[in-house]
């Protein structure tokens, strides 16, 4: 049985080049499905990993109660002072509590190759502790801004996607001119932002407080201590959220949208591919009906024939799937794009094709191959031997 199966399978697979046109249909069809599937999900994976990397579990954000998003939040100076002195916050190297009040201002830059419309970019005014709170931040070009001056450092994502933010450029925002002095990399969502000194941003934009306060938590119990002490203070109405939870909340909508799009598009494409695969495998069985009948006549059983046809379909499906995944990898992996994030500003991220995604794509293509191979395989075993041998 096993010997029979492998013998027939070997014949089948060796004869594929003879029937390359119809085999190609399966391979290309599945390559298309897998490429689209992998690319769409790679976009989602990239967006998620960008935002997930932004969040640490040992840091927390404090925002005005009920604001859900930094951009909606606003805290006045008194509240900020109280928050920054609260228990539960770890002490920094200078012996003071490690906390940075940060102010978000939406500004506008123009996407590369697009002259007309600007898109919203986040500008973040930060306190000195902001850098200690984000050890992943590295200045890769130029230098950091000088406190007290209207200087900006810009994220690597911003310089990649948008015009006019390279070091040396002057960015005009709300009637004020800012000089770009450096570029930073963080590998997460902050890379889509412009950073400046909080005090300068405050005076320039005539704001009093800040949007949020980022704090380092003091050990595992720090979060609860901080939350309890802020909740107990009647002068405050604030929400405390772990930084990672904040960012994963931000990806929810995008995750859902891409998830729906990917399942609808790949679902329809997969159906089409199943029909195409059925067609090709029927044709493959039909052109070999004489050969199959001969095998049956000399004593090969029905099961080995069935299995061999299935294996051929699966083999072609696997080749197609691998081809599709490689196409997606070559075209899209690390492709940098940007979209509108939850706070109405641009988030720059890259497509990430992970091994897990490739595996899922291959599984889909094998399932399609199985579905497309089964009926034709069944037909092959049921061929009436005598008629098939007689047919021209």
């Amino acid at each position, binding site marked *: 049985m096993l010997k029979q199966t492998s013998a027939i399978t070997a014949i089948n697979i060796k004869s594929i080049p003879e029937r390359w*046109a*119809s085999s*190609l*249909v399966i391979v*290309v*069809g599945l*390559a*298309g499905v897998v*490429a*689209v599937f992998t*690319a769409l999900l790679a976009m989602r994976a990239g967006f998620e990993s960008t935002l997930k990397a932004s969040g640490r579990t040992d840091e927390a954000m404090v925002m*005005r*109660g*009920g*604001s*859900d*998003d930094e*951009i*909606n939040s*606003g805290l006045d100076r008194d509240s900020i002072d109280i928050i920054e002195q609260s228990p539960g916050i770890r002490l920094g190297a200078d012996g003071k509590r490690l906390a940075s009040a940060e102010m978000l201002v*939406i*500004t*506008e830059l123009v*996407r590369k190759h*697009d002259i*007309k*419309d*600007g*898109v*919203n970019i986040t500008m973040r005014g930060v306190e000195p502790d902001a850098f200690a709170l984000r050890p992943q931040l590295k200045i890769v070009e130029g230098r950091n801004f000088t406190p007290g001056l209207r200087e900006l450092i810009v994220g690597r994502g911003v310089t990649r996607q948008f015009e006019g933010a390279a070091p040396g450029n002057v960015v005009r*925002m*709300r*009637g004020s001119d800012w000089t770009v002095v450096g570029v930073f990399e963080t590998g997460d969502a902050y890379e889509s932002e412009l950073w400046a000194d909080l005090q300068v941003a405050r005076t320039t934009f005539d704001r009093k407080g800040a949007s949020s306060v980022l704090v380092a938590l003091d050990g595992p119990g720090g979060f609860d201590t901080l939350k309890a002490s802020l909740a107990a203070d009647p002068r405050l*109405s604030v929400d405390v959220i772990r930084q990672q939870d904040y960012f994963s909340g931000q990806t929810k909508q995008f995750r859902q949208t891409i998830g729906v799009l990917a399942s*609808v*598009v790949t679902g*329809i*494409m997969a*159906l*089409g*591919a199943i*029909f*195409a695969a*059925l*067609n*090709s495998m*029927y*044709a493959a069985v039909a052109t070999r009906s004489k050969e199959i009948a001969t095998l049956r006549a000399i004593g090969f059983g029905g099961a080995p024939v069935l299995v061999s046809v299935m294996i051929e379909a699966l083999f072609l499906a696997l080749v197609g799937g691998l081809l599709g995944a490689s196409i997606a990898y070559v075209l899209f992996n690390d492709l940098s*794009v*940007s*979209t*509108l994030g939850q706070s*109405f500003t*641009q988030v720059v991220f890259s497509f990430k094709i992970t091994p897990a995604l490739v595996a899922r794509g291959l599984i889909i293509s094998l399932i399609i191959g199985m579905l497309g191979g089964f009926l034709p395989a069944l037909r092959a075993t049921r061929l009436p031997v005598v008629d098939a041998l007689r047919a021209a």
Partner: protein
Amino acid sequence: MTRAGFISASLFRKKTRTILTVLSVVMAFLLFGLLQALTHVFSGGANFVGATRLVTQARVSFTQPLPVSMLPKLESVPGVARVTHAQWFGGVWQTNTPVFTFAVDPSSYHDVYSEWVMPEEQWRTFATTRTAMVAGKMIADQLGWKVGQKIPLASNIYPQKGGSKAWAFDLVGIYDGKDDASKKQTMQVFINHDYFDEANDFAKGRTNFFTLKLAPDANPEAIGKAIDAMFENSPDETKTQTEKDFNLGFVKQLGDIGLMVRWILFAVFFTLLLVVGNTMAQSVRERVPELAVLKTLGFTDGSVLGFVLAESVALCLLGGLIGLGLATVLGGAVEKMTGGQFQLPVDGFVWSVGIATIAAMSLAVGLLPALRAQRLRIVDALAAR
């Protein structure tokens, strides 16, 4: 036997093959229809009411508010007929449903947005009741709101005096659109700006957008430039653009959706070309002797070419039309299911692009086999060489 009969007979010579091929074409055009509708919506081709209005916002971003006191200055610009303003409220219904809520000045809003219709009396109540709210028909139906109810609505931006973000308004009217296009956009909720301005603890005398209705013969571009020049170098610099550009700019921020869709469609159609092309080639290959007989009987080379082409056209047309039909039905279903929030109109535009694609497809897959059939030499073909 008529020619049409002959063609359908040869198409259904191998039933399974034809049906499977048609089904793959159906799937391809189903996807085509849906994705085209999606890009069409995103490119702003659909959904715009003709009225030319200008939108004035802060130069850098509409999230930065402008003072309401700019209104008389805007209204005095020649060519501007009426000006109204709207402020984003950040409305949230129950725990997590965002509601497009704007604080507006009722009477000028009514004048500028003539596409929203509601009995005049309700407009008056809206203007005179401080805590009034009016809602679009679609959103009201979706959330089950009735006129006369007190609607609790939270804001994720603005606290009231005292710090609470839970607001409540009296629903005094439900507006509808005056034509089919605007009926599909009644998703917004309006509240009274005077009350909002007084009761909130955050922004005073500020608004996000001004909408300018122009005089009939006005030049929108020139007026936009004049306004932006007027406020240049002031603390509140402006950006004025037509409503259509404003909406497009917003959509563009989502990123290049068109590009993504083009990639997907490219993958789909490349595959399809191969599937259908292979079927056609195979069916011609199998019928070489028959085609030779036809020629022997006196059918010209041209008519044999015609037969084969007609088969491929029939295949693609059948599959393509069913696919586009399915897309239309599904698009409508999506619109119903989401209560009109997400529209996927597979309309005349999508159909005409679809039919052009069908025509191109049929030629692309049919031409090679058809030429082969045309060039057959009777002697060789009959001898099956």
